[in-house]
């Protein structure tokens, strides 16, 4: 079973490379019982969305 620390590492790498099947299964098993890591993962998705907005110069909608 992965520790939370391992899971946060995988959640980050998930943004940079395709995870292996084993990694995905282990991740899913852990997330099913761990709210803190689930939050962590969602927050990384949010960061991705925010930086994407940022780099497109759309920091706030309708500012032009």
């Amino acid at each position, binding site marked *: 079973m992965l*520790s*939370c*620390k*391992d899971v*946060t*590492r995988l959640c*980050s*790498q998930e*943004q*940079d*490379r395709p995870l292996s099947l084993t990694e995905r299964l282990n991740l899913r098993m852990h997330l099913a019982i761990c*709210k*803190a*890591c*689930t*939050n*962590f993962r*969602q*927050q*990384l998705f*949010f*960061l*991705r*969305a*925010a*930086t*994407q*907005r*940022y*780099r*497109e*110069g*759309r*920091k*706030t*909608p309708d500012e*032009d």
Partner: protein
Amino acid sequence: MSTADVGTGIDWNDPSIEKIRRDMVRFAQLQLRDAGAAEDMVQEALFSAMKYESSFAGRSALKTWMFSILRNKIVDHIRKSSREIAGADLVSGSAEDGDDFDALFNERGHWNPEDKPPTWADPEASMSQQQFWDVFDACLEKLPPKTSRVFMMREFLDLDTDEICSELGISTSNCWVILHRARSGLRLCLDSNWFDNGEAAC
């Protein structure tokens, strides 16, 4: 440069262009951490935009279009100059930052009760608030410079980790470690400075 001969109707003297230019300078400075280079880059991007304005398709996305030109200029600049950044320097720099985020976990690798990431209340709504972006900027600037550089290349310039590794002469796993550290730092900073009132996860 005259724009009178092109019929797309971009008024380069419009005050909104100056506002976009200022945002571009700010963006470039964050990427390059060099005010002079940032100004040069934005100048080049503006010249390109004027030169190729006929390829601009729709006015609503003008800023997005100009930012994409700027992003390409910055990527070119990094590709040309990154070999000047010593990869070894980057590696030792990351070791020096330490594993700050290890402190959030106990010896078995589980979250300390007080460090569990809480649920963030309506993060999507934050993105339409200027104050959120001010905090976001401040958090980005708080990242250690070398960590920030890798993060910027990945998230703002949209380079993949293989390219970042080869540009900076670092290993892929080192790249992942640095990116993980950047995301953890940014997450923690936003958590304590913006999403302060989230409920603790159990």
